[in-house]
């Protein structure tokens, strides 16, 4: 081992030890102090009841599959629409100017409204028109609300990706005789999409969480199911169990997005 490596190894051991000790102290404080709070027994009984947890967990997991399903069918629509809006906003053809305006208004509008509000407006408003089955389904209109919001975000992310591709790439393609369309399709977009994968991963994590908002308009997905259990058992533990299920999905996904982001940054530096 070189002198330098030995020194760095020693520094690292020291840092690890300090981090370990300070973590232990904080943990110990939490474990000792929290139970001393006057309401702790009541909170533990209504939020961290092991029996209730075990009892509701399988049903919540089953309900969560509905969240996953709504997520799964929303994602392709979100990306297709997001891409269409991004391209509409980027086109320079004067004949298609209305499309550009439409894209800009769309993005401003649906990024500007809180998701939950849109879920209410679309999810209650449109079936309220008295549409025949199945067009009055809250699944359809809840999904529409999510797709409207998230496609607006994805459109902006894609557009920033497209604009981040250096003009020299476009020039090289145009000079080879490629049309504007082929240049976008074969040269710009593939690079732009790759570049915004991490940002879109974070978007997907947010979407997975926001699917739970559909519980407000009917579908018995995990949040709604937890609410039913709460009323049934007069206990809040089902909500904690639901949170645990969400974390099992969102934490690895967020970590993966961070990993991609770091890899991308390393590759570019």
């Amino acid at each position, binding site marked *: 081992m070189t002198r330098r490596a030995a020194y760095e190894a020693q520094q690292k051991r020291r840092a690890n030890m300090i981090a370990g000790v300070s973590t232990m102290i904080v943990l110990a404080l939490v474990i000792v102090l929290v139970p001393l709070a006057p309401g702790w027994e009541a909170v533990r009984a209504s939020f961290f009841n092991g029996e209730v947890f075990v009892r509701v967990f399988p049903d919540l997991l089953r309900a969560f599959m509905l969240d996953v399903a709504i997520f799964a069918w929303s994602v392709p629509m979100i990306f297709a629409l997001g891409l269409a809006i991004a391209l509409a906003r980027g086109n320079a053809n004067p004949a298609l100017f209305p499309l550009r305006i439409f894209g800009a208004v769309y993005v401003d509008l649906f990024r500007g409204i809180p998701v939950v509000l849109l879920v209410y407006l679309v999810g209650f408003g449109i079936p309220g028109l008295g549409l025949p089955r199945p067009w009055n389904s809250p699944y359809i209109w809840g999904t529409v609300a999510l797709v409207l919001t998230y496609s607006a975000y994805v459109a902006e992310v894609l557009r920033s990706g497209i604009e981040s591709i250096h003009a020299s790439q476009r020039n090289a393609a145009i000079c080879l005789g490629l*049309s504007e369309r082929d240049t976008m399709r*074969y040269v710009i977009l593939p690079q732009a999409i*790759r570049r915004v994968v991490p940002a879109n991963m974070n978007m997907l994590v947010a979407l997975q969480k926001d699917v739970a908002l559909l519980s407000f308009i009917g579908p018995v997905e995990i949040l709604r199911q937890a609410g039913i259990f709460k009323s049934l058992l007069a206990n809040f533990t089902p909500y904690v169990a639901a949170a645990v299920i969400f974390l099992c999905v969102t934490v690895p996904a967020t970590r993966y997005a961070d990993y991609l982001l770091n890899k991308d940054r390393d590759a570019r530096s």
Partner: protein
Amino acid sequence: MPDPRLSLRGVTKSFDDVQVLRGIDMDIAPGEMVCLIGASGSGKSTLLRCMNGLEPVDDGEVLLDGVDIAEPGFDLGPIRQRIGIVFQSFNLFPHMTAYDNVALAPRRVLGEEARERIEALFARFGLADHMRKYPDQLSGGQQQRVAVIRALAMRPQTMLLDEITSALDPELVGEVLDVLRRLRDDGMTMVLATHEMSFAREVADRVVFMDQGVVAEEGTPERIFSDPQRARTQQFLRSVAR
């Protein structure tokens, strides 16, 4: 003299009120190799980019085989196949293999797969073993040769080359210059902006010295390098000789 392949007549070009090209006249004969020399900022790149319509000119004519391609509104699409251009910074598409970089435009524009022709080009320029690699797996010299092959795959009659060795480590310059020697032997019409004075002297049919947006002096390499007439030319050649 045969009809020129490319003629410029009174070409001017400004960027934000700064006139970068101030009336350029030039004739390039078929098969001729013209080297553009001049200080950085003298307008060489801009001139090359005006020759294939990548930059629209403000005024004047750019005649390709007698047709004015600088006319506002002229459809440059078909013209671009006839004039290849290679840039200092290669500008390969990083998400495609070397082969796909070359094959994209023939496939989309000419509608031909051209596999054998492209493989022959790679083989000819010593890159047969590198076709399946991505640009970031190739050295600078190899990348630049791929960029030349990419332009050649469209079967251009004229090649514009903008300081294509300037971004390369010195030991890689030679392999790219060799490519140009072979193109010259093929009779390709070429306009080459370069800082490689000894190469210009060796291969050019004509050397054009640009200074502040005008052609300050032009002539055979022998004349320009051995017996420059203008003070500005003498000064520039002294500055690069150092």
